[in-house]
């Protein structure tokens, strides 16, 4: 996927950087509000389909990221992610976590456009990323 918007990439990087704790905990704290926000707008069916596709694409690069098919709780996809990330070293886990966010938002942006995707991210992470750290200016080549 090469559609990543630089502003969105920066937003994801900032959100991951600002989070305190282990990579897995940070990822969970970012996925939870994003999941809630998106399910509210597009429904759980829409969110699940997008997440499953993004997870599949990320899994192709990081095969150790695998869903635990045994669990069926509503939060199981995020729990599976947390478990997978916890088993890796911080650097590898960070890269995989970043790729999942990027792939997910790339897919979303390809469907609903970059401005709306960035707007949803900003809104969902308003508690995680202080307003002063949200990149405002669009890049000229965007």
């Amino acid at each position, binding site marked *: 996927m090469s559609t990543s918007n630089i502003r969105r990439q920066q937003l994801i990087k900032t959100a991951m950087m600002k989070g305190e704790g282990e990579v897995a905990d940070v990822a969970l704290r970012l996925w939870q509000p994003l999941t809630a926000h998106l*399910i*509210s*707008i*597009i*429904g*759980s*069916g*829409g969110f699940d389909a*997008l997440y499953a596709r993004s997870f599949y694409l990320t899994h192709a690069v990081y095969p150790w990221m695998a869903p635990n098919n045994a669990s069926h709780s509503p939060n199981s996809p995020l729990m599976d992610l947390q478990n997978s990330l916890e088993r890796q070293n911080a650097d590898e886990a960070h890269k995989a976590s970043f790729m999942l966010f990027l792939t997910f938002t790339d897919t979303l942006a390809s*469907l*609903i*456009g970059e*401005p*709306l995707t960035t*707007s*949803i991210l900003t*809104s969902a992470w308003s508690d995680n990323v202080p307003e002063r750290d949200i990149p405002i200016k669009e890049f000229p080549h965007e």
Partner: protein
Amino acid sequence: MSSNIIHSLTTNVPGLDLLMGGGLPEFSFNIIAGTPGSGKTTLAHQIMFSLAKPEYQALFFTVLGEPPLKMFRYQQQFSFFDVDKIGRSIHFVNLADDLLKGDYDSVMARITQEMQDHAPRLVFVDSFRSIVQAGREQSGTDFQLFVQRLAQQMTSWQATTFLIGEHSFPEAQANPIFTVADGILWMSQNVHRNSMVRKIQVAKMRGQAPTPGLHTFRIDAEGVTIFPRAVLPPDTTVQTANNSFPEIERLSMGVPALDDMLGGGLPSGYSLLLVGPSGSGKTVLATEFLAEGVRRGESGVIAAFEKSPRQMLSRKLHALIKGGQVGLIDTHALDLSIDEALHVLTALIEKMKAKRVVIDSLSGFELALAPEFREDFRESLYRMISVLTKLGVTIVMTAELEDRYTDLRFSSYGTAFLADAIVLQRYTEIGGQINRVISVVKVRGSAHSRDIRSFDIADEGIKIGPRVQYEGVLSGRPISSVFLDRSAPENP
């Protein structure tokens, strides 16, 4: 008709406010219903994006049906879609999960919660049919109660509400939501032969007097544009004290000899039908009419329904259009409705403050109309001419008519009676040559020449010659009057 209590909102959807009888009544509970693909969601979004502001919040509930992701994807193609309003003035909420729980109470609880969170002034539910279908297993009484509660809830929350649903007319009659609704908008797309025409009807609008009947609309990059059926304004002509007709101003046609034939020019506000076969010079004469107006400081409009501008534009007409004194309507869009054509024409006439209008030609205009409107062409033309002449413009319409020498006709549509004046052009064979002749057949309320005169198109313009010295020109068998005089039997 609307009282002071009911405040009307301006939707900014072109034509819609007029159709609803003066805007959207605030706090009303409305239904946008119609067939799939008829533009219901687009209309709802257009109204929402126009009205929503930070101090006037909107809540858009999506249910089952069109996936929200696709709705966002496609609706963003319209110019009214403003991403910056989302999350600030407009909030989208998906009710699918609540609905799948299977009871109206949980749906109502979610709606109530969202209403409390956002305090919206505008609420949309798309599609309401999903709620109806999901509740099929429940009793009808439950659904009726749910609708009643919803309507009450929305009104007491001071929200203007739209339920959007795929409903057909017969099933709608038995549906309780149509009884509860204050306003009902029907949208449809009708296929006739190979053409498709979109229509909208305001079936109900409590507290207001909507424009009755079906009205055509178009969906383009700007969204929905409605063309309300043209209704003739009341006649405000005031007769003079002595009941005599006031002196009517005459407009020059740009050809002095033709002005003479018309009895001193074409009376202002008249519609003239210029009839003739292909190549007889109708467009040239119409161009002279416009050019003469420009010479006198009157701007004009030409609606070119027949030929492409490049084909049509003579150097003279091109210069007039380029100079900005004549506006060009190049309508090659198919499936036009008469009201859309009229909408475009009146907008340009008003913009240019035009006094002279040319419709070239009626044949092309008829072809541009969607087939279903062609069946009512005479009626459509009557409405169009009436509306245009009420604007105070003088109209020249061209109509192609093959020369027939066995009957004398002035138009192929039986529309000659609609015109106040008729000028006929014909070909005739004289002395081994094809010659053009011209005559004035009719000028309502005015004396005019009865001569059949020769005419020609030269580099310097139209040249009208003397009365032809032949008889039987219209029958295709001209005989020299001189010959007739000589051969006439002498009186005994």
